[in-house]
């Protein structure tokens, strides 16, 4: 150690990190061997209340940048729609919102809409079969235990399962309905929009049936029943639209209201919560 010490100006600039790289390195070299100057640095930092680097904070930010997964496009959309960040994450992690699922559903819809738009005789039938069941299949996929393998740790958390299921259902509908509507625009006739109420009815039916069987089984059963009904009508003369017109629409409304009522009444028996009977 020499008799030389950092002058006040150099010390201040070092503490404020306003010095040059070379000046800082020189000051640091001196500080390594000079206890009195190190004491002066501490005093200067505390007296002037300068923001000394919080290494823990810096380390946390570094780990955040590495470890915290970037929100998906869908999650960012949910946040943009006003959902709190934490709930947007809970909704977005469901398997149903993974690209492969959405791409698959969109491809099937696009195919059906294209067939209908080209005026193929069976095109309208195909769209009628596919459009109403896509939302209920994706809803089921958003909370089925088979699709959601983290079920058991999720089950014993305090977060209400009913809320999680409804959040995911609403998110699915918000995503699926506009997409199907968009494809529907290419379909001639009333089929383009008349499937909406059946779709809502089927989603409600799946929620209600999930209190007895697994959501995916419920959705497959509803889809098969719908396919059988449309196939049966296809063998008869007349327009396929008959099933989604007039009184039939009232029937779908009743199905939706009744099923949702059953779902709320039997929510404790949800298949998701099947152990707790």
């Amino acid at each position, binding site marked *: 150690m020499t008799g030389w010490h950092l002058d006040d100006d150099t010390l201040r600039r070092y503490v404020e990190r306003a010095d040059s790289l070379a000046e800082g390195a020189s000051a640091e070299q001196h500080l390594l061997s000079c206890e009195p100057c190190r004491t002066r640095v501490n005093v200067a930092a505390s007296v002037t209340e300068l923001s000394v680097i919080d290494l823990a904070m810096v380390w*946390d930010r570094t780990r955040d940048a590495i*470890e915290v*997964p970037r929100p998906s496009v869908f999650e960012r959309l949910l946040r943009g729609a006003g959902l709190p960040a934490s709930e947007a994450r*809970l909704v977005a992690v469901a398997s149903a919102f*993974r690209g492969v699922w959405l791409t698959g559903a969109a491809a099937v819809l696009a195919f059906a809409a294209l067939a209908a738009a080209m005026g193929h005789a069976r095109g309208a039938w195909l769209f009628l079969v596919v459009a109403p069941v896509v939302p209920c299949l994706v809803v089921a996929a958003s909370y089925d235990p088979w699709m959601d393998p*983290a079920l058991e*740790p999720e089950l014993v958390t305090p*977060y209400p399962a009913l809320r999680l299921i409804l959040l995911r259902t609403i998110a699915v509908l918000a995503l699926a309905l506009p997409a199907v509507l968009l494809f529907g625009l290419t379909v001639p006739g009333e089929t383009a929009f008349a499937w909406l109420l059946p779709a809502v009815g089927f989603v409600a039916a799946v929620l209600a049936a999930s209190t007895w069987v697994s959501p995916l089984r419920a959705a497959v059963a509803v889809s098969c029943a719908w396919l059988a009904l449309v196939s049966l009508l296809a063998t008869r003369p007349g327009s396929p639209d008959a099933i989604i017109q007039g009184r039939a629409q009232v029937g779908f409304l009743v199905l939706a209201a009744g099923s949702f009522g059953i779902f709320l009444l039997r929510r404790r028996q949800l298949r998701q919560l099947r152990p*707790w009977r």
Partner: protein
Amino acid sequence: MPTASISLRDAGRTFGATRALAGVDLDLKPGVTGLLGPNGAGKTTLLRLLATALPPSQGRVRVLGLDPEVPAERTGIRRQLGYQPQEVGFPRGFTAFAFVDYIALLKEWTERAARHAEVRRVLDLVGLSDLGAKRIRAMSGGQRRRVALAQALLGSPAVLILDEPTAGVDPEQRVVLRTVLAEVARTSVVVLSTHQTEDVAALCERVIVLDRGRVRYDGPVTDLVAQAAGRVWLADEPDPAASVSWRTGTGRYRNVGGRVRDGAEHVEPSLEDAYLLLRGGAAEDEPAEEVAS
């Protein structure tokens, strides 16, 4: 602070015609309690009852003085509960950090900075601090078990239920996990099921042996080991009368139970010896009881 506790009275659980658990009476206080028993003995069923993942078919369960059959009280229990199931499925594409962060959200950690700090704390505890960004699918079996344990440790729960937490974990990490669990057990009720008797011997002050859904032994580990004192011996030949007998690395036969022959060398019994003796050398897997119709 009230003492964490669990009590079961005549608790039982059936699945259809199969009785998985019958007439269990237990009182559990802070500390580590080990559950031993063959496959199908009812260990997982008992743990799921305690974790509110399954309701009892009969009897009464109270966790922290709360009744899990009352929805509001069940939620109260879950706020103070950590549970590591036997099998944890991980959503596709998740990293360790993302999975634990997801469970933390469900555990009502809504404030981002605090949640991330807690996720890091538990990942650090289980020795995964450097693997937070690694995809779980690319991890070894032991690392996945540690991810599952990390989510159970979130929030320093008053009740920690662990189903085979050390299965597939390497010896060094098992020692680390024992240290972590011993620390947690200073204030929390920790119940773990395992097939590793050395974990129970090293960690648990109390052991419960289940057999066909019933409690076969409940008491201090040392007392169970003491029951085998003088009944474990080495000989040049296996003893047909012994409960179990196997050839050791030295070429001699370790006999547990039976009549000690002249010239046999007595050895200190281990917990495994005592457990095997208690079970009488029965086959490892046992079918659960059928419920009388």
